[in-house]
Every structure is written in C-alpha cells, then in structure tokens.
C-alpha cells in the first residue's frame, strides 16, 4: 500500500516538470523523416527479464519484431526531470501514436527497472497501471529482473550507468543517480538512437520512429 501511495505521489507530482519540458518549443526546424540516416549504434543486449506477471522471459522478445522505445528507470525516482519525465514522455507519445492510428501494431514501449530489490513485478505492474491503465493501442511493457547479476548484463549491454550514492552510509532506499537514457531500437534489435534530456524532444522521437518505418518500407499515409 505504501508503494502504491508513493507511486501516486510521483504521478501527481511529476506532470509539472513534464509539462514544462514538453512546452519547450524546438528552437530549430528538425530534418524531415527519411531525409537522414539513423546509425546502427549498438545491438540491444540479450538477457532474462520478468514481466508484470513475474514470468521470466528472454529480453529479445521485447526488443525485436517491432520498433521499440525503451526507457531504463526505477520507480522510486523522485527527480521530476528524471525517470518520471521519461515515463510521461512515453505516455504522451503513446497517446499521439494511438490517436494517429496505423503505427500501434508496429511499435512497442518498454520500461525496464534497474532497481530489482524494490521494483518487483507487482510494483512494476502498479507503476505501469499509472501510465498505461487502459492496455489498449500501442503495447507498453513494464519489466524488471530477478537479480543484480541479470540486471548488470543488461545495463552493460546498454551502456547505462548507475552511480553509488555520494554518502555510502545512505540507506538502500536512497536515490540511484544515473544519466537518463531512452533507446530507440529497430525491429532487428539494433539501437538506432539514444536520447538524453538534452535530446529528448517528442517531435524528434516521432521523426526518428517515422524514419525507421520508412526504412522498413512502411506506407505512411
């Protein structure tokens, strides 16, 4: 119950930061979809994850077959410009994509926790319920891992940092500082773009998704 209350508090507290960030208009005209190339940066790592029901699954089930937008998060994150920002941006993108129609069957979102001690499948399920309660349209998976060992393989694969608290005596429930990163993965499991806060503009993400869809030969009427 306490965890649900914390989640509720985060959900209520964060929209301001998100709205502020989203309101920042692009200070440039982005290149049109399909007029630029997204490089093959890295292969998405393989590993084992737990889905919202606690079932162990190969991670590649969530990084191949569709274009994937993946966010590495932890649900306790209280930085309004951190994990909540990432999740709110995905929520906003999902609404735009579902409203647009035609893309929902070609894409998926994934939020993967790097705090397995706290973020159990049940916690991730509750967290996901806050951001994607209707379970319709574009699928959004909220995943965690069984252990630090399995998590470490995925973090290393993505090149995602997580830092020690500045105060070593801080409780294990303290913050997990990290550089916010969101990954755009093509349907073959290749990471094609990485967004950090400075780069996190919804229109740019949509343009990049459309660029990958065009690359796949999709008709974008």
């Amino acid at each position, binding site marked *: 119950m306490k965890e649900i209350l914390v989640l509720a508090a985060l959900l209520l507290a964060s929209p301001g930061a998100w709205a502020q960030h989203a309101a920042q208009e*692009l*200070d*440039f005209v*982005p*290149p049109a979809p399909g*007029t*630029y190339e997204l*490089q*093959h*940066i*890295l292969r998405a790592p393989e590993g084992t994850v737990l889905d919202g029901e606690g079932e162990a699954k190969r991670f590649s089930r969530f990084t191949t077959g569709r274009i994937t937008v993946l966010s590495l998060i932890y649900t306790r*994150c209280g*930085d309004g*410009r*951190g*994990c909540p*920002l990432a999740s709110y941006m995905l929520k906003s993108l999902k609404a735009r994509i579902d409203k647009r129609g035609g893309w929902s069957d070609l894409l998926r979102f994934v939020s993967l926790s790097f705090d397995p001690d706290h973020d159990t499948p049940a916690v991730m399920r509750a967290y996901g319920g806050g951001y994607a309660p209707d379970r319709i349209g574009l699928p959004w998976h909220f995943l965690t891992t069984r*252990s*630090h*060992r399995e*998590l*470490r393989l995925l*973090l290393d694969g*993505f*090149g*995602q*940092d*997580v*830092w*020690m608290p*500045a*105060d070593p005596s801080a409780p294990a429930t303290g913050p*997990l*500082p*990290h*550089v*916010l*990163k969101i*990954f755009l993965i093509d349907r073959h499991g290749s*990471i094609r773009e*990485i*967004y*950090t*806060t*400075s*780069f996190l503009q919804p229109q*740019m993400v949509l343009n990049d998704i459309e660029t990958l869809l065009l690359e796949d030969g999709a008709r974008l009427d």
Partner: protein
Amino acid sequence: METSKTHAAAWLGALVLCATSLAAADETCNSPYIGNLIKGQEDYLYVWALGEKGLGDGSDKLVTIDAKPGSAKYGKVIHKVSVGSRGEAHHMGLTDDRRFLWAGGLDDSKIYVFDIAKDPGRPRLVKTIADLPAKTGYVGPHTFYALPGRMLVQALSNSKDHGGVTGMAVYNTKGELVTTYAMPTDNGGDGYGYDVAVNPQKNVLLTSSFAGWNNYMMDFGKLVKDPEAMKRFGSTMVVWDLKAMKPTKILSVPGAPLEIRWSLKQGDNWAVTATALTSKIWLIKQDASGDWQGQAVADIGDPAKIPLPVDISISADGKGLWVNTFMDGKTRYFDLSNPAKPVQAYEKVTGKQVNMISQSWDGKRVYVSSSLLANWDKKGADNEQFVRAFNWNGKELTPAFEVDFLEQKLGRAHHMKLGSKALKTAFNDAVQR
C-alpha cells in the same frame, strides 16, 4: 568530516544526472551531454602526458594529481598509468556518463579508454583502439566529444597523404566504430578538422580546422620557414545539422581556428574560438534571420608578434574567457560581457610556454599545462614541462601548487580533466546478489 560532507553536498548539488540542459563548462568545456559535472571542489586532476625519450619509461601516460586542498597529498602525483608506447598524447574526453576517459595519440593514432569510475583515484586502462586509420582512413584522433551513448572523435589528418583533409568517427560505448563523416571539401570547405562542439538547443554542431600530420609532426622551427607548409592550415569552420550530421554552412575563419566554446548561458546562441596564426577571437552567432555568421571580434595580444593563442576556457556564466598564448607564456582573461566586443582584463606570465587551460565550474581554480606538441615545444631551458594550479579571485591568479613533469620523469604535460571521488559506479561489488 565536515569537509567531506561539504564536498558531498557540493557534488550532489551538481548531480543533475537526469536533467541536463545546455550547461557544460572544463569543467566548463565538456560536452553538454555530460550530466554529472563537478560543480564543487574537484578531488583529482587527470593529465594526459606525452612520453619523452630518455625520461622515465618514455611512454605516454595518464597522471592523476590530488587536487583537493587540505588533502595530505594535495598537489602530488598519486597515480600514473603508462600506455607502454609513445604516440604524441594529446587530448582527452569524458563519456556522457563520466565513467570513462578517452585519450588519443596524434602520431600513432591510438585511442585509449580509461575507467575512472570504479576507483576515481586510480584510473585503469581498459581498452585500446588501434585501428582508427585502417578502418576510417583518418589519422590523429584529436577531440573526444560525448554524444548520448557514443563518442564523437574528430581526427586531424588522413592515412593517404598525411595532409589536413580528414573527418570524424563515431564510436559506441564498447569502442566499436559506428560510422564516419568526412569534413566537407566542397562549397568552400577545406576538409580540415580540429575541435567539435554541440549546441543541442539549436541542433548545431560546430567544427574548426587546424593542420595535418605533416605539419603537426614537423619541427616547429622548420615549419615556420617552410612557406608551402605554412599554407596548409585550416581556414574554415563548419556549421552542421547535428541530427542529420550534414554540413549546412562553411564559415571562412582564416588562421587555424582551434578550440570552440559555446556560451553556457541558457538561451544564448553564440560560440567563440581563437585563431592560432592570426591571434584573434572569433564570435560565431546567429543573425536576426537565424543564419550563422562568423566575425573576428578581438585581438589576442599583438597579432604581429604571433603570440600563438592555443587553448581557451569559457566561464560557466559565459562572461569570461581564459586564453593561453604559447609563445609569450601568458594566461589572459577576457571580459566577455559583450561577446561582440571582448576586452582583455588581466594577463600573467604563467610559464615559459603554456598551452592548455582548464577551470573549475565556479571559476575559482585554474589549471595550466605546458606542452603544445612534442616537436613544437620550446627547446633548452625554455622547455619547461609542468602543471600549475592557480586560485582566481576575479582579479589575480595566485599559485596553488605545481608539478614539475621533467623532474618527476613524467613527460610533457598536455590535456587536463577534473575528477571526483564521489563519482563511483554502483553494482561493481553487488553484482553477485
């Protein structure tokens, strides 16, 4: 204990890991994608030093100096990692998460990756990339600039003729080559490269231009007497569409424009550079129509005397600029309150030869190193090799500590980066759980 708490608080205050904007200052001159800038007191100064034959092991090495006032080893070398060869060590760059420090050799074109996160006081060499020329055709990896999950490497030369036509290479975090981008040779481009700097808010990458291997490896006295060689210096800057990585405009900037520093003030739309051969500060700015323009806005010393401006460092508020001039050994401070009219406000001779300059985020500490290039450094008694730390009170530089790189058989001191002991990664010891 109180000091420790203060330090931790200062660092935590700077720990905007999840929320970076265009705010990056050496500490003020890092990529804007580096989120965890050290805004409090740094603990370490990392120095990438060129090996010198007959001095110590003669190899290039990463030297770590204790830079924390009050520490028992303050101002002392506490660690060094030799790479086992001499390849003209030059510049370094931090990855976006600050876990790794990439460093390059201009002669052997090797790239070294040091882990500075597991034990920040004892960097470890974890990877060597030795196939840059073979895979890209480029020679002389110079600038290492963090992009999200990637490292953008600007080369200076090419393996075909060792001239100045070159390009950029992008590597992923595993050190694998992702792609390359040639410097433009059409529409006025000279194809040369030197520094790179990004303004994400404008979707702009700026690049500058220097010289190829034939020039930077030539003896300096011989070079200046070779009129043909003296023609082979860069005279352009390139404005790129960052997202598309396509050049959009070539700016004519004669005299080898070197380091590029964007103003770090939110919303500012300008950068500055210094031209080595013509000794001028240039302002790169959007005009009223949004078009990028370059303009010489100030002399650095007396250009007729060729003081040879080298490194520059902009203050976090964008209102001041340090400029080192190699030939006269001066460290100069320019008031940038009006970037269109910089005014020199201070100067001090900080060595017989000075090259790189790095300042802390708060601007209170300034570090100066001595070496430009092995074959360009002065000879005899003028060939001082050092790192000198100064305190800056806004009016005067006062010495804090000095490390003599010749006396300690470390080589020639070149690029410097700051480090913090608070920056340690999680999960290193918890992986078994």
